[in-house]
């Protein structure tokens, strides 16, 4: 019997700097058998661990069907801090993937509205790439990405590519622009982009990820525009310890974020999202 709690080991193949405190780590399982068997869906997450320090849930931000796993991590806590002190070639513990991921099969043929804030773009990165690769299967793609400042944005290298996607709109917005503004960001919250939005709620699905306060406001605004609760999906963050729905920390209402989520239909969890 496999023990779910044992981490497998992965090697850091590459480290890409995203922002001042965010890096993308390209990881690969050291065990080739596990690496070959590994498959994931956009929106799922991994449990990364540095033995002696602890374990942390990190969402996968790879391009689909890639042999390696990208993890975009912001340096905020003990585990992430320890991961940041690792160098290329170092190994760390990794188990997963866990969670359900975005309902990509369910939304074929629909327009897609992606609203992301800050680090929230990481779990959606796979979705955007999936839509680009299967462009004909989906309708209009609209990405609204907000961050505190333009410097705080992740995946900046991809922005020029995303701006050229066929049948799509791409908004960038920042709370404040202190220094230069290389991507022609607007200022304001993500919701300030909604009035200019091309997506009409009739045939669209909204995918939200970001700080919970942002998602709550965005979901509320989308509701007033006319989006049905069932058409809004969001990816939540909670304290996770086991990743497999046993330790109980990530409960939200009748669900575990780690097992039943982290992607939820807004309709299911609406009563449980409240002010921090």
């Amino acid at each position, binding site marked *: 019997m496999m023990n*779910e*709690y044992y981490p497998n080991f992965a090697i850091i193949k590459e480290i890409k700097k995203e922002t001042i405190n965010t890096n993308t780590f390209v990881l690969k399982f050291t065990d080739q058998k596990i690496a070959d068997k590994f498959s994931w869906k956009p929106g799922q997450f991994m449990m990364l661990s540095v033995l002696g320090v602890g374990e942390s849930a990190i969402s996968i931000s790879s391009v689909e069907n890639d042999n390696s796993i990208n993890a975009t991590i912001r340096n905020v806590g003990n585990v992430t801090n320890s991961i940041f002190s690792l160098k290329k070639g170092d190994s760390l513990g990794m188990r997963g993937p866990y969670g359900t991921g975005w309902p990509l099969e369910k939304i074929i043929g629909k327009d897609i509205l992606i609203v992301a804030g800050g680090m929230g773009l990481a779990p959606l990165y796979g979705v955007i790439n999936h839509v680009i690769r299967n462009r004909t299967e989906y309708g209009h793609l609209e990405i609204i990405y907000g961050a505190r400042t333009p410097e705080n944005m992740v995946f900046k290298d991809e922005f020029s590519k995303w701006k050229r996607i066929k049948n799509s709109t791409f908004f960038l917005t920042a709370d404040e622009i202190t220094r230069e503004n290389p991507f022609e960001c607007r200022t304001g919250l993500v919701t300030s982009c909604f009035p200019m939005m091309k997506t009409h709620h009739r045939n669209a699905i909204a995918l939200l990820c970001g700080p919970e306060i942002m998602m709550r406001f965005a979901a509320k605004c989308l509701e007033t525009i006319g989006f049905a609760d069932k058409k809004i999906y969001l990816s939540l963050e*909670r304290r996770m310890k086991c990743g497999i729905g*046993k330790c109980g920390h990530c409960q939200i209402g009748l669900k*575990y974020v780690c097992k039943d989520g982290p992607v939820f239909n807004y309709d299911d969890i609406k009563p449980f999202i409240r002010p921090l």
Partner: protein
Amino acid sequence: MASYIIDKKDLKILLDKFLKEFKVYGPIKPGLDSSVDEIKSIDDLHLEYKSTIISPKKFFLPPKDTLFEFKIQKGNYEIKEIVNDEKFILFGLHPCDVNAILKLDEFFSGKFKDKYYQNRRKNSIIIALNCTQPGENSFCKSMNAGPFLYKGYDILLTDIDTKYLIEIGSDKGKKIIQGLKLNIASKNDLLKKEKKCKLANKKIKKILDPNWLPKLAEENLDHEIWIDLGERGGVAGSFPCLSCGSCSLVCPTCYCYDIYDTVDLSLKNGSRVRELDSCQLLEYGQVALGGNFRKDRKDRIRHWMFCKFGAAAGSKNSSCVGCGRCIRVCPSKIDITKVAKSLWRKK
């Protein structure tokens, strides 16, 4: 399977046989303050207990449990498995606790299996004892978990005055009493058990209808009673919640745990440990950068109540069995049955 009968004074024979082969844990004190601990001889055993302080889940989900040990050498890791193969008998568990164990069994299986729990469970033999003297806080009858047991035991004892009725519930149970000369129970003995059951049922004063509990939770997310419980007090004579976590720690179906790493001073050897946690504590919902998803006391107590009502993520597997431990242990005198009743009344 067949039922047997044993004289109370002959219980020693039974216990001595078990002691020869297994480690035996059982209630060690009479009354309410009992605890399930190791039994070395018949004198340690007190089957007239009402309830234990800590539930017997500690044998399957210990307060502190090492998941694995590791060694770090020049950036390479080595993981050492922890094997615990000790076989043991839990002697004299009450039906509520056995039912709670059944719930945990369900919880720790499923798509992701918890090897540690399942391993301990596999190595355990449960000898249950039907509860003829339910305590004043018990409401097991309402939660379909007692006072008499109908499933989940390997062997079931029932006190019928001068004798114990022995019922076998599994092959494991059959195997361990093989070789003992026991008398087959008569029809009269079985009738006596029925009578005892009825008597015990009558002794339970707290009654609740479990069927509407989940619905009650669903409808009362924003009820005032949660503010009363958290800050103001006065729910059926209770004080405000202290967030001490006692209720969830003594609960036989609470399963939440925390995982952390410890290392020795050389930073080379360490272990990953899980420790029983409580949703009543502030740190339970805390994430990096100080964010907390359950900051308010009222949110925490509400979550726990809902979990016990069967309206949280654990669903039926973490719902209440009516053992009454949380009522007894709460310094604030918060009574889950009274909370449920006032929710119902205030509708």
